[in-house]
C-alpha cells in the first residue's frame, strides 16, 4: 500500500468537490509563518507523517499568531515523532500542514476499505469521531457501523439513510450523501485500499468538512494510477524495507535477533512461528517470493546482515519455481560480497535440492545445512543464544 500525506489526500478530496480547511504544506518554519499570515491566524499545524496517533504525540498544535506558528514549526520540523503507530524509533517530520482552524460542532469517523470476507468495498463509520478507530472499537464497539457496497450498484439510498440515522445527520443529508458517494468514487477511481476522514466534522454553520484525510493506494494498481504513484513520499519508509521492495522482496523489520529468509509468505510465517515455538525471536520477516533470482537472494541476505541485532540466520527454501540451486548460487554470491560474521543455518527442500547441496559444499563459508526443518529451527535458536 502506498500512503499519501494528509495534505496530498486533501488535495484529491478538494478536486472531487469535498470541503477541506484552507491550508498549505510547509517545509520550513518560514513557510509556516507565511502560510499562517496568508490564511489568517489562528491556524492549526499538523505533522505530515505516515502514521496515525500524532495528536497524542504532539503532532497537532494551534498557533494564535504567525510568529507562534513559526515557533511551533521550528519545534516540530526535523524532529523524530513517536506515535502508537510508528514503532519506538519514530519517523522524522519533514513537512507540516498549516491550515485554518474550524469551529467544530460534531466529529464523525468515516472510512472505506475492502471487506475481505464479503469481497466488496465497505464503509466503516462512527459518530464517535476524532479518536483513532481502534480506540472507538475498544471503548464504543456499538458505535461503529459497517456498510458493504455492491460494486455494480454503488452506495444505495437505504445505506445512506442508515448511515445518516446512525451518525446523527438530520438536516445535512444531502451534503452527507454527496460526501459519502464522492469518497466512494475516490476509492474506486484512485484504486484505494483505504480512504478515511477522521474527523469529518459538522461545523457550527451546518456545513460538513473533512478535517483529516487519509488515502492508501493499491500498490498493484500503480500501473494505472501514475498520478498517485508520484505522490509517494519514500522518506517515510524504513530504508531496508524500501531496498527490499526495489528487489521485489517483502521485508518487515521485527524486534528479535534471528534473521529469516524464506520463500513464500505462508512458509515465512510458519518458519517464524517455529522459531518462536523453540524459544527464539525473529529479527525480521523476509519473503523472497516466487520469482527470486541469485541476485535477489544475495540482496535479501545482505539486508539481513545489515541488521546489527541479528545473531544467527535461518534460510528455509522449499523449491518450486524458485529452484534450490539458484538460491544456493545467490547465497554464495552474497557471501563473496559481504562479510558474514554470524552463523547461518540452511534448510533446502524441493526442486534441485541435490544440486544446491553440492554448490553450498564448495562455499567459502561453513553453513549448517540441515534436512529437517524442526532441527534447523532448534539449531538456529541455540546459535542465536550463543549457547
Amino acid at each position: 500500500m502506498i500512503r499519501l500525506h494528509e495534505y496530498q489526500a486533501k488535495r484529491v478530496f478538494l478536486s472531487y468537490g469535498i470541503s477541506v480547511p484552507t491550508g498549505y504544506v510547509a517545509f520550513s518554519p518560514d513557510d509556516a509563518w507565511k502560510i499562517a499570515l496568508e490564511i489568517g491566524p489562528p491556524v492549526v499545524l499538523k505533522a505530515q507523517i505516515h502514521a496515525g496517533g500524532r495528536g497524542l504525540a504532539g503532532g497537532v498544535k494551534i498557533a494564535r499568531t504567525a510568529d507562534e506558528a513559526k515557533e511551533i514549526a521550528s519545534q516540530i520540523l526535523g524532529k523524530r515523532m513517536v506515535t502508537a503507530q510508528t514503532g519506538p524509533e519514530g519517523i522524522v517530520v519533514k513537512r507540516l500542514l498549516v491550515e485554518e482552524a474550524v469551529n467544530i460542532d460534531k466529529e464523525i469517523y468515516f472510512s472505506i476499505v475492502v471487506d475481505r470476507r464479503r469481497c466488496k468495498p465497505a464503509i466503516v463509520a462512527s459518530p464517535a469521531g476524532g479518536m483513532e478507530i481502534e480506540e472507538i472499537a475498544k471503548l464504543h464497539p456499538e458505535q461503529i457501523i459497517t456498510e458493504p457496497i455492491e460494486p455494480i450498484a454503488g452506495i444505495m439510498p437505504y445505506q445512506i439513510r442508515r448511515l445518516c440515522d446512525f451518525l446523527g445527520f438530520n438536516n445535512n443529508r444531502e451534503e452527507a450523501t454527496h460526501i459519502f458517494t464522492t469518497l466512494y468514487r475516490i476509492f474506486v477511481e484512485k484504486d484505494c485500499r483505504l480512504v478515511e476522514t477522521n474527523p469529518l466534522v459538522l461545523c457550527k454553520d451546518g456545513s460538513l468538512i473533512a478535517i483529516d484525510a487519509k488515502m492508501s493506494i493499491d500498490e498493484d494498481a500503480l500501473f494505472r494510477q501514475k498520478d498517485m504513484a508520484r505522490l509517494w513520499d519514500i522518506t517515510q519508509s524504513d530504508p531496508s524495507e524500501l531496498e527490499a521492495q526495489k528487489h521485489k522482496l517483502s521485508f518487515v523489520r521485527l524486534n528479535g535477533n534471528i534473521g529469516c529468509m524464506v520463500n513464500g509468505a505462508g512458509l515465512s510465517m510458519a518458519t517464524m512461528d517455529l522459531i518462536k515455538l523453540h524459544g527464539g525471536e525473529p529479527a525480521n520477516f523476509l519473503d523472497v517470493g516466487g520469482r527470486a533470482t541469485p541476485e535477489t537472494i544475495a540482496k535479501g541476505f545482505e539486508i539481513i546482515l545489515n541488521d546489527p541485532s541479528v545473531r544467527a540466520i535461518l534460510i528455509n527454501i522449499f523449491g518450486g519455481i524458485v529452484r534450490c540451486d539458484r538460491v544456493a548460487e545467490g547465497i554464495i554470491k552474497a557471501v563473496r560480497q559481504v562479510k558474514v560474521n554470524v552463523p547461518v543455518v540452511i534448510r533446502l527442500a524441493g526442486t534441485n535440492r541435490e544440486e544446491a547441496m553440492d554448490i553450498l559444499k564448495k562455499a567459502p563459508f561453513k553453513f549448517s545445512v540441515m534436512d529437517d526443518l524442526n532441527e534447523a529451527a532448534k539449531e538456529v535458536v541455540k546459535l542465536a543464544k550463543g549457547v
Partner: protein
Amino acid sequence: MSVCVDKSTKVVVQGITGREGNFHAFHCKEYGTQIVAGVTPGKEGEEVAGIPVFNTVKKAVEETGADASLIFVPPPFAMDAVLEAIDAGIRTIVCITEGIPIMDMVKIRMVVKAEGVTFIGPNTPGIITADEAKLGIMPGFIFKKGSVGIMSRSGTLLYEVVDQITKSGLGESTALGIGGDPVTGTDFIHWLKLFEEDPQTKAIFIIGEIGGMMEEDAAEFIKSNVKKPVFAFISGRTAPPGKRMGHAGAIIMGGRGSAETKIKALREAGVTVVENITEVGKTVKEKVGKG
C-alpha cells in the same frame, strides 16, 4: 476420483508465449496434463512445446475442446484474460498471476460467482490431482496419488505439507492453493464440499493463515457438513498484528482473524490443529492410518 481436475481436463494456457507461461506449460504437459492449446493475441499459428497457439480463447476452445484455463498473463491484463475465458465457455480457471489490483478481483469474484465458474487464485501455485493433472507451478515430483485432500492459502507452505503427507505414505487426492490475495475466487468452504463428496479423499487438510475470516467460516461449515477427519495448520501466530492489515480493515474483522481465533474456532469444530509445521505428516498419519 478426485476433485475439479483430472486426466480428462483439457487445458488452454493463456499467456503461453511469455517466459513463465512457456516454462510451466511445458512442465504441466510433461506431468501428464492435457495442455491442448495456448493463447497469445497476435501469435496464432506458432507452437510452444508442441502446443498450438491461438489469438483468442474462443478459437482455442472451438479447435481443441479446452474446458479449463491456466492463466499467466501480467496483472494489468489479467482481468481481460479471465473474462475472455469465461466468455469462451471455460468453467475452471486457474490464475497464477500475482499482483492483480484488488478492485479487479472484486469484480472478477462477482462475475465468477454469478456465472458459476470455478476460479482458483489469483496468486496461487495452482491445483493438482496427483498422477493425473497439474494446472500450476508446483513441483510435481513431491506429489503422490493418495487419500488426503489439501487446500492452502500459501504456496510453499502447501509444498511443505504435501512433502510430509507424501513421505508419510498417505499421498494426496487433489491439492490446491486458493490464492494468497485478500480477495480470491473460491474459499475453503467451496473445497470442503467437494472433498467431502469425493470418494478418493479420506482426510482433508486446511492450510490457513492470519487475516480474513475464511478459517472461521470453514470451521462453522465443518461442524454440520463435514464427516471426514479434518486437519489444519495456521501460520502467523507470531506475526506482528495490524502491520499489513491496516486499521479500518482490522475493525471490520471485529477482533477476529488472528491465529488464535482461527485455531480456537477450528478446534471447536473438531478439527485437529497441528502446532508445529514439521509434525504435519506424523499427526495425520497417526490419526488416519495407512491410506
